């Protein structure tokens, strides 16, 4: 689908505040509600707008540790990636798995209640995953910026 400047303006307004209603958007974009509604429908049916997400503060739920594991796999094993990710998905504390091109192959985020809990997951679950040749860990100290906003 072709995305024009008006679409981009509406998307920017929604990136600023996803809870804005059609009438609020219409007012901010200096349009009437009908055309705004039709454009949003089009953006949604074309899959440009995929949905909405709630942001959850996991620290408030007792999960204060987030560790980013950077994993190198044994690439002499043809199915290393698949076998690794299938097993990694089964660990409930693994909240993201990403395949990368660079010095490391996989990035995996592990969320834990505290360092003892993390240590337990690391020893009993993470190290048991197949085809790992090297693991590097980065522990989150603070999040300075976190946005999904695209510079459109």
């Amino acid at each position: 689908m072709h995305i024009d400047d008006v679409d981009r303006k509406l998307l920017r307004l929604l990136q600023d505040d996803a809870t804005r209603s059609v009438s609020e958007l219409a007012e901010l974009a200096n349009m009437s509600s009908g055309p705004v509604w039709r454009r949003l429908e089009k953006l949604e049916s074309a899959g440009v707008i995929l949905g909405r997400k709630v942001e959850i503060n996991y620290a408030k739920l007792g999960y204060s540790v987030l560790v980013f594991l950077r994993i190198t796999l044994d690439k002499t094993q043809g199915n290393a990636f698949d076998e690794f990710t299938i097993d990694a998905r089964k660990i409930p504390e693994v909240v993201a798995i990403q395949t990368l091109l660079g010095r490391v192959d996989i990035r995996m985020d592990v969320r834990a209640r505290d360092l003892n809990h993390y240590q337990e997951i690391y020893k009993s679950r993470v190290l048991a995953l197949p085809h790992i040749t090297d693991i590097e860990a980065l522990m989150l100290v603070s999040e300075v910026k976190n946005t999904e906003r695209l510079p459109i």
Partner: protein
Amino acid sequence: MIVDIDEIDHAILRTLQEDGGLSAKDVGGKVGLSQPATWRRIKRLETAGVILGRSIILDREKLGFDVVVYLGVKLVTKGLLSIEDFERAVCAIPEVQLVQHVLGVYDYRLKVVARDISDFERILRRRIMTLPGVGNVESNVLLSDEVVVGMTV
């Protein structure tokens, strides 16, 4: 600081993690609660700071951003001043979506979105490498992304 939540709150959060666009009525339907009761619980989770807000999810590729790169950044000087300068300057770059201060082989983790590899190179050379205090930078290009949700709640 930790908010005590019960099984129903957990169910509400899990439902909202799967689809953040659901109304209180839809969420209530899934967890077996009336709309007003669900709405009150969601409000309470918001007031307690468990739910921070809602954001829109856009398809970055359909909007022309084909490349995502994760950077590991090491600072050369680590005085308080250089950290503040670095953080202020890096947060101001619109293509940088994520800035995380970390402990480990790097000092910061960044996520950068770009239109293509040459756009990324421009951002890296002109915006990132010129940041105050920047030392070693490692790039890893994202090939596939899998976010596993609803598991730790």
